[in-house]
């Protein structure tokens, strides 16, 4: 009985991949452990291994095919014997040791995947891969708008957030010899999330520096190099690991200019993915925006789309101040238009109106912006015209943009992929109370993640993370609808 071999999920966030190469052909007998194909994910090229014995009866997806969705049947195999349960398990071709749970490690096939392979019966998609909280976050990201500030007629290029970040670094490295990138797997591995892909080739090991797994050490080393006059970009594989280094970010980098009476600066960028990823549970899923935004002496940026990621990262690298640049893993692979101008640098500290509206303001940042935009579309269908503001910079916060919009709509909802307590949304609500009280026609409401460590189980994760429906409900509530 022929069974389907399916496109495997080879990373926690992989939704599709490229079938780069078949290493078997139709009619080949394979046994457990044989490499069947090479598959490029958003992070790496992985080998796709046979789990059981059988014969490849038909190849359904030709090599070189891009955008093959996870779960798509890519080949048929005839099992040998009743108990044969052909399937495939991914094997990481890289030899680098990654910390537990770090990217680069293949996700094990889910139980429902195996079930599908055994029976050969197509289950509904949501049962094959339980819908995770991350999916509800990224579904919203598809509905993105281009930067309204770009003059009409400017040519744009459609790139991923990942490419935009890489381009920003490469451009600044070409421009300024003092700029270098340092972190775990940034050079030879080409970036744990491929954000630094190609930089080693262009700039060499002097300026693209692989470190040992030693966050506290290299955050301090980078800060010292910045004090000495260089322009370090310190990549944290994720900001969860920066907890080991937070002393240097705050006590060394943020306070130096003040403590020295303006004499000694620390122009450094600490960057990396922040916030919930997908199914990586509590220790790898946290939004540190509110933590860093509470610290005077830091600039904190959390962009949503590729244009902002590029323009603000370039601004961050040029800044004389220490910058915490919070990216989002779930957005790395998403495409957005980036204006094709010679030097795309955006102002730090300025929010952006993502969607104009007159009835209510929805304020968000980072991945929450996509959720807010999706909610705004739904609300439009219900006769509520929502304005969506992307804060982009969390410190210094663009209070004026928030208050101006509040004065226009008189109602506000804050959307934050993070915990509610002592959050950016708390701060926005306080600003509205203190400085916009007379403009309020309703209490400001917020939609945030549940006030719990992020759970692993798909259904619980989904419950914990923000979703557009909740934003719709909250927005209707402040509109008394």
């Amino acid at each position, binding site marked *: 009985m022929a069974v389907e071999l399916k496109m495997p999920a080879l990373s926690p966030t992989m939704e599709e991949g490229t079938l780069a190469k078949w290493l078997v052909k139709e009619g080949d007998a394979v046994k457990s452990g044989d490499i069947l194909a090479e598959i490029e994910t958003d992070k790496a090229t992985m080998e796709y291994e046979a789990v059981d014995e059988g014969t490849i009866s038909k190849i359904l997806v030709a090599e070189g095919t891009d955008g093959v969705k996870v779960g798509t049947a890519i080949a048929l195999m005839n099992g040998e014997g009743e108990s044969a349960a052909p399937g495939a398990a991914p094997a990481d071709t890289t030899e680098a040791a990654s910390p537990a749970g770090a990217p680069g490690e293949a996700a094990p096939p889910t139980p429902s995947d195996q079930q599908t392979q055994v029976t050969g019966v197509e289950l509904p998609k949501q049962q094959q891969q339980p819908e995770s909280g991350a999916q509800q976050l990224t579904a919203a990201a598809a509905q993105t708008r281009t930067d309204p500030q770009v003059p009409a007629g400017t040519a744009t290029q459609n790139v991923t957030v990942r490419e935009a970040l890489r381009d920003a670094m490469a451009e600044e490295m070409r421009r300024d010899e003092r700029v270098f990138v340092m972190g775990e797997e940034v050079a030879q591995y080409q970036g744990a999330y491929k954000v630094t892909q190609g930089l080693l080739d262009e700039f060499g090991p002097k300026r693209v520096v692989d470190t040992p797994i030693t966050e506290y050490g290299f955050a301090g080393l980078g800060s010292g190099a910045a004090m*000495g006059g260089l322009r370090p970009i310190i990549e944290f594989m994720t900001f969860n690991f920066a907890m080991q280094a937070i002393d240097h970010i705050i006590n060394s980098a943020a306070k130096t200019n003040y403590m020295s009476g303006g004499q000694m600066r620390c122009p450094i960028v600490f960057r990396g993915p922040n916030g919930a990823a997908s199914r990586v549970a509590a220790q790898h899923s946290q939004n540190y925006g509110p933590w860093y935004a509470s610290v005077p002496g830091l600039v904190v940026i959390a962009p949503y789309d590729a244009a902002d990621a590029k323009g603000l990262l370039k601004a961050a690298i040029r800044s004389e101040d220490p910058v915490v640049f919070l990216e989002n893993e779930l957005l790395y692979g998403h495409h957005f238009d980036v204006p094709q101008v010679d030097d795309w640098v955006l102002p730090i500290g300025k929010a952006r109106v993502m969607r104009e509206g007159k009835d209510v303001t929805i304020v968000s940042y980072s991945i929450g912006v996509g959720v807010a935009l999706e909610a705004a579309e739904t609300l439009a269908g219900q006769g509520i015209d929502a304005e969506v503001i992307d804060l982009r910079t969390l410190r210094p916060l663009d209070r004026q943009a928030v208050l101006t919009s509040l004065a226009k709509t008189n109602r506000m909802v804050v959307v934050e992929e993070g915990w509610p307590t002592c959050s950016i949304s708390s701060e926005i609500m306080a600003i509205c109370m203190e400085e916009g009280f007379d403009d309020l026609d309703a209490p400001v409401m917020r939609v945030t993640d549940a006030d719990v460590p992020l759970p692993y189980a798909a259904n619980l994760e989904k419950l914990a993370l923000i979703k557009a429906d909740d934003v719709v409900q909250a927005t209707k509530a402040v509109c008394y609808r």
Partner: protein
Amino acid sequence: MARSAKQAAQPAVPLTPNRERPQEPKRYEASKEELLDFYKQMLLIRRFEERAGQLYGLGLIGGFCHLYIGQEAVAVGLQSAMTVGKDSVITGYRDHGHMLAYGIDPEVIMAELTGRAAGISKGKGGSMHMFSVEHGFYGGHGIVGAQVSLGTGLAFKHQYSEDGGVCLTYFGDGAANQGQVYESFNMAELWKLPIVYAIENNHYAMGTSVDRSASEPDFYKRGESFRIPGIQVDGMDVLAVRGAAQEALEWTRSGKGPIILELKTYRYRGHSMSDPAKYRTREEVQSYRENQDPIDRAGKELQAMGVAEDELKAIDKEIKDIVVQAAKFAEDAPEPEAAELATDVLVERY
């Protein structure tokens, strides 16, 4: 068990070095003029710190104030071998002596201690947070051990810029137990960074003696598992320190990477002004003061070289005047303007 016990009882076989090691440093042969200069610098630190202690008692200096009295030979011996403007120095919170040894004006240091606008950090840093980028003095850091990673970054900068500089990174026996020290050691040796780690072992991490806190009390060995060589030095003898500094600088300047100097020293005062120092005996302190004082030792050596006692007294007077003037400056200088509260938080405006 019996077998291993028997083996352990056998005399230790001398270790064969498995890699190149620095030479055993020679005590520096100073000319009379050089030794006089070291003497003056050590005396300046001593008198400056004594005066700072007095000002603290008068309430003119607040917060934490960590005095360097007793350890003067370390800063002077090491920094006299360095080049201001080319090399860099970074240290922890006990930083007054290291600044003075780098030729930074005592007036602006004392004015920082009293929290005045004329202070080197405009009165916003205080005793533990002072910097002079102009001199290549990068602080003055209050978090124990932080300067070790930061200093490793300064060494990275020297290597990256190919400016020929070396970073001298000071830390104490207490900081030597911090994890980031070893993270830094690893990277420094991996990348052969030009850095001298100077561990000032004054025997007490605040009130905890080395015996109670260090499983390996010989701090010069702390780099062994990273292949960083170390040298133990009499930190109460300025010429021994200077000799070791030269050996260490030669090692790291020639591209051989980091090196550790353990300077055995002693602080006469408490950890900070508020420390009654009940964790050690008066006799212990007295013994160091009487038998090992670095300034007395240099003074005696100068006399043996033919310097008259009157000449030393004249130096004492000269130093005293400098310190009196620094204290007067620090007391008279105005406090920072209220508007300074909000300046220097960020460099740029956004």
